[in-house]
């Protein structure tokens, strides 16, 4: 008979428990040989599955035929535009073109006190809002996945990748290969955003690519964890460097790499 805690142990293994729940499972498995064995077996199963499962990228002809299908759809709706407008009774058909180009919030804003509006505008005008940076990160990650865009320097050898950044980015990131832990270093690339040359390290984890971006930290702090368009983003600072890992891996899997990089970075950083 399996232990009654087996499903909770599995949830712990899958990174689904909060800190308190995780602690409870850890305490429980100390005294339960069955659950200790289960954890070990789950680890072995995962390692073998992720090592052996085969997967293929979408073929180029499929990408092309989807683009064609969307083109046809766009063309179709353009022709049917007037009809579609009629079919939707709630569509504001009588709004004049001039009114429509006015952002909707402008009207609301004009009702507020001038000082408040000015303050809000000032806030909006401060460059490089965290949201904008997160969007740029996801954009850079997605661009990197296009054919031929992933890496500028292909190497699993940190002694090749690290010096390469010296001539191509404004920062020198932590470069370590974690193949043994399931994160293979594929190479590096230079990107440009937030008015800097940003270093990007590329790791592969199973079927997923992970970009780790490093640049000189700005004044505005980024959220530790965020999700944009289905991509997870984990951000951390090390000294004056801002690091962000972006991928469509699971949260737990992404944070696994972040933990490894943080530990490596803290080992590498000069004291003080």
């Amino acid at each position, binding site marked *: 008979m399996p232990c009654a805690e*087996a*499903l909770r142990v*599995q*949830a712990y293994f*899958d990174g*689904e428990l909060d800190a308190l729940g995780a602690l409870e499972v850890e305490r429980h498995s100390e005294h339960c040989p069955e659950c200790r064995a289960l954890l070990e*077996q*789950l680890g*072995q*199963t*995962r390692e*073998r*599955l*992720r090592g*052996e*499962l*085969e*997967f*293929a*990228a*979408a*073929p180029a*002809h*499929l*990408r092309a*035929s*989807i683009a064609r*299908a*969307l083109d046809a*759809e*766009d063309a179709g*709706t*353009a022709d049917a535009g007037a009809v579609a407008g009629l079919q939707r009774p709630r569509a504001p058909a009588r709004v004049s073109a001039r009114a429509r180009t006015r952002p909707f919030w402008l009207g609301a804003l004009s009702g507020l006190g001038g000082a408040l509006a000015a303050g809000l505008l000032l806030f909006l005008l401060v460059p490089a809002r965290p949201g904008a940076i997160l969007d740029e990160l996801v*954009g850079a990650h*997605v661009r990197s*996945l296009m054919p031929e865009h992933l890496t500028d320097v292909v190497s699993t050898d940190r002694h090749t990748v690290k010096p390469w950044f010296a001539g191509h980015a404004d920062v020198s990131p932590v470069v370590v290969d974690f193949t043994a832990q399931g994160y293979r270093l594929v190479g590096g690339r230079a990107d440009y955003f937030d008015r800097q040359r940003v270093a990007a390290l590329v790791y592969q984890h*199973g*079927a*997923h690519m992970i970009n780790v971006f490093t640049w000189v930290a700005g004044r505005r702090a980024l959220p530790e964890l965020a*999700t944009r*368009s*289905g*991509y997870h983003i984990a951000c951390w600072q090390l000294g004056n460097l801002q690091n962000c890992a972006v991928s*469509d*891996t*699971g*949260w*737990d*899997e992404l944070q696994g790499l972040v933990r490894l990089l943080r530990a490596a970075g803290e080992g590498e950083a000069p004291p003080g």
Partner: protein
Amino acid sequence: MDDKRARFEAQVLPHLDAAYRFARWLCRSSLEADDVVQDAFLRAYRGFETLRGGDVKAWLFTIVRNCHATAVQQHKRRATVPLPEEGDQAMQSVLASGPGPEGASVAADDQRTLERLMAALPAEQREALLLRELEEMSYREIATVTQVPIGTVMSRLARARAALRGEWQRQVAGESRAVR
């Protein structure tokens, strides 16, 4: 409208590889997977306005899954002879196109391939396992895609993992007997 296309290309199209990976496991052939994925992206594009800042990948996978179900229904309706139940033979075509014509000794090895073991799992268990281990989705995301409660996801995962583990143990036991 151009804006919709641009947003779709920025938010949904990047998940094409993942959607294809998933479809490839659902479908019997790569041809069928192509059709399912293309159909799914067209449907996703049409319904894109209904997606309000939700989980893009889980949303897209749900559509892929529904498109596959529709395709299966259509095949069943068209077929004069009822098709075998999904699952057991789903990966046959993958195996046929996979290892190549190496001969009978490889065919024996095929018995042991992971694909074979996966194919032997009930479809809903295989699906949960793939979404967790290959796509690295959370329980909540898997529950969204497969439209079952989280508790069901957990028990399917547990059963799938236990079944694979059991098979592997039996193989190891069989091999050691064969050596002796």
